[in-house]
């Protein structure tokens, strides 16, 4: 019998359509992540504007918009990792692995709707900052580069956690604590210059630190700083995605979630 393997494109398309439908059928977490930061930005803008007035008219607006963007996109990791964890708990991941699709195809198709969500969340908050608080975007291309690099890093981190952790509760703890910790250390809540000395020293260990740096620099039109921090985010994404792919391609059907 001649062996003909269908090409990857239609498979990935079918999987992306399927994963998008799954995500939209449980819209609660998505809506929550899209709406909550708008409320917080609105309420906290006056506070940040007053606190950072000495650093220029835009400083407070940039801080509150980028800070909430980083914090809520970190919390949106629950959507990414939750998707992987659900596949494992439903045992559908092994079912998909038993098809002709490569592990990379499965991961790409799982990632695509989540990547769209993460970019949409960031675009929404930047647009809200522009419309509601006069946020200036010096170079939209730079901002797009920063947003995409942060979205890819988040995607890798979310998939890595979804692949490695053993239960939904472990996942929730990781996102809740990790999201807040990385946000705070990254300077999302308090500007990096105002962090305690010990926190400032370990801040670069947080992906949020590099995301804040890339986004702030992009909004100010500082290309070199934007690309430097975006490169760090891309490196984080590569390592995390590689770990996730390695783990998911070796998931044993006998490995049980808690």
């Amino acid at each position, binding site marked *: 019998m001649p062996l003909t393997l269908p090409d990857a494109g239609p498979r990935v398309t079918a999987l992306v359509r399927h994963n998008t439908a799954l995500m939209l059928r449980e819209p609660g977490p998505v809506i929550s992540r899209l709406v909550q930061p708008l409320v917080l930005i609105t309420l906290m803008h006056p506070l940040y504007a007053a606190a950072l007035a000495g650093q220029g008219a835009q400083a407070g607006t940039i801080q509150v918009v980028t800070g909430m963007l980083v914090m809520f996109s970190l919390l949106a990791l629950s959507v990414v990792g939750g998707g992987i964890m659900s596949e494992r708990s439903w045992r559908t991941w*092994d079912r998909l692995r038993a098809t002709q699709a490569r592990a990379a195809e499965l991961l790409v198709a799982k990632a695509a709707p989540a990547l769209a969500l993460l970019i949409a969340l960031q675009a929404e908050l930047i647009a809200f900052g522009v419309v509601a608080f006069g946020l200036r975007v010096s170079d939209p291309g730079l901002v797009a580069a920063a947003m995409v690099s942060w979205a890819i890093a988040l995607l890798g981190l979310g998939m890595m956690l979804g692949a490695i952790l053993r239960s939904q509760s472990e996942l929730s703890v990781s996102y809740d604590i990790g999201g807040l910790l990385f946000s705070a250390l990254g300077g999302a809540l308090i500007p990096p210059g105002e962090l305690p000395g010990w926190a400032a020293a370990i801040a670069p260990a947080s992906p949020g630190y590099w995301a804040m740096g890339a986004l702030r620099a992009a909004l100010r039109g500082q290309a070199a700083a934007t690309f430097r921090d975006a490169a760090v985010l891309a490196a984080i994404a590569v390592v995390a995605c590689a770990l996730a792919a390695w783990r998911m391609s070796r998931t044993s059907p006998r490995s049980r979630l808690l």
Partner: protein
Amino acid sequence: MGVLEASGLVKTYGRQRALDGLTLGVAAGEIVGLVGRNGAGKTTFVEVVAGLIRPEAGRVLVCGVDALARPRAARALAGIAPQETALYPAATVAEHLRLFGALAGLRGTALRRAVDDIAERMDLGGCAGQPTGLLSGGQRKRTQAATALIAERPLLLLDEPTVGADPATRARLLAVVADRAAAGAAIVYTTHYLPELAELAATVAVAQAGRIVARGALGDLSLDKVNALIAGPGPDGTAQDRGAEDGNAADAA
């Protein structure tokens, strides 16, 4: 040459040897009922052939394709229904069938026709638009089997497809399996229910502690002997009857 030729498969989990040199071949149009007590190696064998786990030793050929060296190519030749029901609770029956049909390489009209056909054969037409999380156990079983049967493949691996199924579901599934075999598919059918194998006129292969200890037509093997072999030693070696532990050489046919 058989559609499936597996030989000398060895797989261990920790100190437990799940497959201990298991050898099994299935010819086109043949249904092999793989029976054995829990832990005898039935599901591990299916998972190895499906490429979900790698054995430490042995060889698997599917239509001449080395399934260990080229697992994706081998999977393109097989329809696989795992033992545990694996469905998306929020996705409908029709969405499952379309997804797995597309992953099997079906497109356009061929995909639509295959979805309609298997839904009708498995009596899923009435619930095609319902999320599987809302289905009865029998409907879920039929949906799971339908995802494996939607594309016609030279090899079918059905791992305890009727566990927990109602008589109607069982009858539907057995009819489709018999039809596929009649059309030339080689079928590995693991089960604990010998009457199903009799109904399918299947060859019986008895797995015991990771090996095939007897193989033959159900009519040639006495039911008592099959039952005694099934009740043989488990994976921990707790022997109840090791009368046929010469393994694959003990072909009762």
